[in-house]
């Protein structure tokens, strides 16, 4: 009897533990490097993997670089070349971090919660710490996280003539949305 109760308790605990980690394979990252000279360097990646641990606040993203979709085939091609993101060598962009004020977010109560996220962003084989703000929206059982920030391409060893010519922003904006 005791063994049965213990087993049931362990199964329940495992189930609860499992439920706190949420994942999605359809998070969206928008990359906007447009300038006044060129409105084309802008892309969406709609098949980003994301995870969120509602207890610890750990949050992570994995984005296949070749899945950033530009409207112009030439820009798509350039984006992936060795002189830019070099997606053959560095196929995935990764973020691993934590919502530092996760205790302020009530995941079981509908609302919009402002959060701070700190973590490591790896692009083009270079890892840099970043800190940004975002929102967590809880609504009808779903959790939506959104964040908007800029990066410096030179910090990630991404450079090229188009940046120098003002046709690609030196500090593109990145918008991340994930619905769990």
């Amino acid at each position: 009897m005791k063994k049965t109760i213990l087993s049931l308790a362990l199964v329940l605990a495992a189930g609860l533990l499992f439920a706190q980690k949420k994942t999605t394979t359809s998070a969206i990252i928008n990359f906007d490097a447009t300038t006044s000279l060129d409105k084309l360097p802008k892309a969406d990646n709609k098949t980003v993997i994301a995870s969120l641990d509602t207890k610890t606040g750990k949050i992570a993203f994995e984005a296949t670089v070749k899945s950033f979709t530009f409207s112009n085939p030439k820009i798509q091609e350039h984006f992936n070349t060795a002189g830019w993101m070099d997606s053959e060598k560095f196929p995935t962009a990764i973020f691993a971090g934590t919502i530092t004020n996760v205790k302020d977010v009530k995941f079981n109560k509908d609302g919009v919660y402002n959060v701070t996220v700190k973590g490591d962003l790896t692009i083009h084989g270079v890892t840099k710490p970043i800190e940004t703000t975002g929102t967590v929206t809880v609504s009808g059982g779903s959790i939506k996280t959104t964040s908007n920030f800029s990066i410096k391409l030179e910090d990630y060893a991404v450079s090229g003539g188009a940046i120098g010519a003002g046709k690609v922003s030196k500090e593109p904006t990145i918008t991340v949305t994930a619905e769990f």
Partner: protein
Amino acid sequence: MIAIFVLLLAGGAVIWWLFTLKYEDTADVKADHTVNAMDFIKEFKQDMAAANKKYSEKIIVVNGTVSKIEMADTTANIKMIDTTNGAYIIFAFQQQHLDEAKQMKEGDKVSIKGSCSNGAFSSILETEYITFKRCAVNK
């Protein structure tokens, strides 16, 4: 003088052409390969590098069963999942074909054409996955 003018005009035309290039509708593009979804996943699991070399940035028709539909405000992604190990293929549809994806149901046998981006191993999900972009129903 005229030669220089003609060269400048030609150069301008090329730049204009490059600037206004757009992707064709995937529905109208000839496929490089036609595959069965589970065999395709198996190929990536067995040798990721070789499969990426063969399929990355190619137009592929994938025949399989809809395992999951993931919809957000502006997206409708279709997934075909190998239920024995969780490995999956995910298809992001072209804007003009979003409704085709939204009309699919889990369990539907479908044929989807798209540009294969890449296969990779996800540390988050601890499984292989292959992403597609600019997808459309293959007719």
